[in-house]
């Protein structure tokens, strides 16, 4: 942050600054054998409208990083700045607001609400954030091919269908930062590609920053940039 942080300067910085900035991020998990470090000083930035693929072996810490960026978990040290706001220093309530209004997350395991219908799930986060827009919702539903499924419950959908609902839910709120954890991990190659194309389309349409974790080099190649997580550090490729 600049030394002369006047409001004007801050505003200027905000427009020019990246959407997401991660600095010296450390995270370890306690285990019976002591704390096991997973991230050991991760640095990267992501501009608005840009997309970044995060690859790495299973267990390398991709989900961990995504959860930290998504303000879902606490880091040991380091800084995460989203849209000029240091997430790592926010209160619990402010972080909840950040998740609600700024971030959209597509979880590896979808995390749909089982007692709500597909239609209700799609609009849920947008309603929470007070940003429900029927026209946008309708467009999303149509483009994701969910129109005929709106009255069903998640458990009555196939994996790919659930995945599309999860993507729709994250985008319905028009997030400034979209995070996706293996969004096509549960899908066959063809469906995965179709869903991916759709997601990228929508990302372009909303102009949000997009960070995606994936195993697949093929998918990673479709994003603007890619980085690889190895031994707790990022290696640019």
């Amino acid at each position: 942050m600049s030394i002369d942080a006047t409001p004007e300067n801050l505003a200027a910085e905000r427009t020019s600054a990246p959407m997401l900035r991660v600095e010296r991020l450390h995270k370890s998990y306690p285990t019976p054998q002591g704390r096991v470090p997973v991230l050991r000083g991760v640095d990267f930035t992501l501009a608005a409208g840009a997309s970044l693929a995060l690859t790495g072996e299973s267990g390398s810490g991709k989900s961990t990083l995504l959860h930290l960026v998504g303000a879902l978990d606490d880091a040991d040290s380091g800084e995460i700045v989203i849209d000029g706001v240091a997430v790592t220093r926010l209160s619990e309530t402010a972080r909840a607001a950040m998740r609600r209004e700024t971030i959209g997350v597509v979880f590896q395991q979808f995390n749909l609400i089982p007692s709500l219908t597909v239609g209700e799930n799609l609009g849920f986060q947008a309603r929470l954030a007070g940003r429900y827009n029927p026209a946008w919702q309708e467009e999303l539903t149509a483009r994701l091919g969910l129109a005929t499924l709106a009255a069903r419950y998640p458990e009555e959908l196939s994996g790919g269908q659930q995945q599309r609902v999860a993507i729709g839910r994250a985008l319905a709120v028009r997030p400034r930062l979209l995070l996706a954890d293996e969004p096509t991990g549960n899908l066959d190659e063809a469906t995965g590609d179709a869903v991916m194309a759709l997601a990228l389309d929508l990302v372009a349409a909303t102009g949000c920053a997009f960070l995606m974790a994936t195993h697949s080099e093929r998918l990673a190649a479709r994003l603007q940039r890619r980085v690889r997580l190895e031994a707790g550090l990022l290696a640019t490729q």
Partner: protein
Amino acid sequence: MRETLWTLAALISHWRRRPGNLATLVLGLAIATALWSGVQALNAQARNSYDAAANAISGGGARTLVASRGGLFDQELFVRLRRAGVTVSPVLEGAVRIGEKNIRIIGVEPLSLPRRSPIADRRTRTDVIEDFFSGPGRGFAAPQTLRRLDLSEGAQPQTERGQQLPPLAALAEAPPGAIIVDIGVAQRLLDRPGKLSRLVIVDEETFDEARLKLIAGDALRLVAPDDDSDLARLTDSFHLNLTAFGFLAFLVGLFIVHAAYGLAFEQRLATLRTLRALGVGPPHLVAAMACEIAVLTLIAGGAGVLGGHAIAQALLPDVVKSLESLYGAQISDRLALDARWWLSGLAMAGAGAALAAASRLTKALRLPALSFARPMAWRGAHHRYLRRQAALAALALVAAAGAFGFGEGLASGFAIIGLALLAAALILPVGLAGALALAERFARRPLTRWFFADGRQEISGLSLALMALLIALATNIGVGGMVEGFRQTFDRWLDARLVAEVYFEAATPADARDIEAWARTQPDIAAILPIWRAKTRIGGWPVDVLGMTPHETYTAHFPLIDATPDVWTALHAQDAVLVSEQLARRLSLAIGETLDIPTSGRDLRARIVGVFPDYGNPKGQLRIDHERLTRYFDDASGVHYSLRVDPGATTRVIANMQQRFGGKITRIVDQAEVKTLSTDIFERTFAVTTALNTLTLIVSGVALFASLLTLSDMRRARIAPVWALGATRRKLAALEMARVMAFAAVAAAFAIPLGLFMTWSLVAIVNVAAFGWRLPFHMFPAQWLVVSCIALCAAFFAALIPVVRLARVSPSELLRVFSNER
């Protein structure tokens, strides 16, 4: 606000998918509230009636003056007080019999009554007040009393002694079971000319205690409005018992609520996490959950209070009869409950729901957005759970021991029972886990091993329902044992106490003298034994003093708990007394001590030579020599007698006497009739307890059913892998049933010793404190068997639907378990 509302919507959507779970929750809360508020309704009803009795005359809250020695005093004293300007209003009370019913006659002087009195209020209606004085006068009775007597307004019934009452008029504020008349009329009806039973202080402001002393000396004693009512005091323990059982039922109901809400919480855990991940802050989450509980409370609490009304309505006749026959208390038989009762029922529902949900709310407050669910974490959590249960149980046991060591009386008795129940309930899952672990070790076949291992995972889900079952079973054994023991003791005691063949009450002492003289000439009548009685108060408690003549009837049969060797000779030769068990306990009296008994003259100082059981009598009782009774108590009523008759001649003698003496005998009954009457009182007293017990058992059955039903979805996930590996659905369903039955059997095994402990506590602590008598401790193995069978049946029926559903579940549904695994 917006977030809270949408969160609430997401939470509530859960019930749409699981109406069974919702029904259980609502049902549990409704049942708990119903049982509690039902009992409270009964208590409130009774208290209102006592208050009505106390308030009808004075308008409530007035102090009264009564004879220091008890009994009646001369009207002349009142006249002197009035002349000296002490503003008091006279009252004479007594009982008459009208058409086989006991009716209280209350004589008042309406002109001098306090203004707030409902009777005085009638002063404005001059026609009525003129009626009250002139001509035949008027008698005011509650509409209920008129119904009970089968009379309508304007009727002029006769007492059994042939006195005619003034025309009756309905007055809603009149106490049930009483007729209010002018004091002169009362003196005539009760045959107490020139006598009064109390004076109501009209105006506390101007009342001058010094002047009272000056005129009345210490002939009169001031009584505060609260302890005025012996009735409230005597019936206290009855109501406390009722409250305790109501509370127990409430607790069992709360177990259901706790289990059902806990289950809903577990089922919604993933949703709660997702909500947190989507940006719902903890305060909003908790606010939404609290809203949900509030709505549920309103619905279930409302239904519960209505149910409570129905329960009270159903039990009221028994309560009314038992209070009437035990204490002579008249309770209105129409439920009339005020807003306070409805609100307190709802409040209790809210408190119960909050209690059941509190731990989950705090958990939700700290819920992380990410779950770290690990399959192996179950084991650690399970052991932590068992350790915590054991620790809490130990704590409860220590507290129970503390209550036993340091506590005293009724409250400590109930505390011991409650804590022991709690400790046993808490330790039950630990016992179950131990039994299953042991069984697993000896199991050979893989499916059996899985059965036991899987059963351990079931414990935490079912434990609350099983605890409720355990408590209900133990209560049934405990109370059942107490009641059965009491019944046996009571029967034996009645036989010993009711040796004489015929009992009668003469209309007046003069009539009694006539009958006595005649009886001595009758060859059929071996002996006529006067049982004259006087009233006194010792240590603030009402005590009846009864006379005894030296006779084999007593010396050979009269049951004694403790006595000096020379008890019977001493009783008749010296100033000696037999004391009832209740009185002995209350005043800590022992054989050999002396007791000062206030009489209408000088005190009687008597040596205690025996203690006798006097079950079912809320008042204290003393037995002294008949001659001494007549000497010391000039106000003794000399109208009660018993006759020793050749058993074959009983009917003939009674018929003979009725024909010969007619109205001179107010009441004559044979031994069998007295016994039936007493046993009837006994049965009624415990009818309510038994009904509550049964309800509690039913509630626990519902709890088990509810838990099993809601768990059955989770069970599917556990069973699917075993099914996929080659076990048939039928086999798995059979195993499910076997497991539930085994759990119930363990609960029953726990319940027996616990129930025995409860019986002991009831007999040795609670009854002694509540009623003043101690019963011998009996065991009834047949009863244990019945209760165990009930437990197994309850488990069987509770498991039937879930198990059948499981046996019929389609393979595609089992497969879905795999596709939805998260």
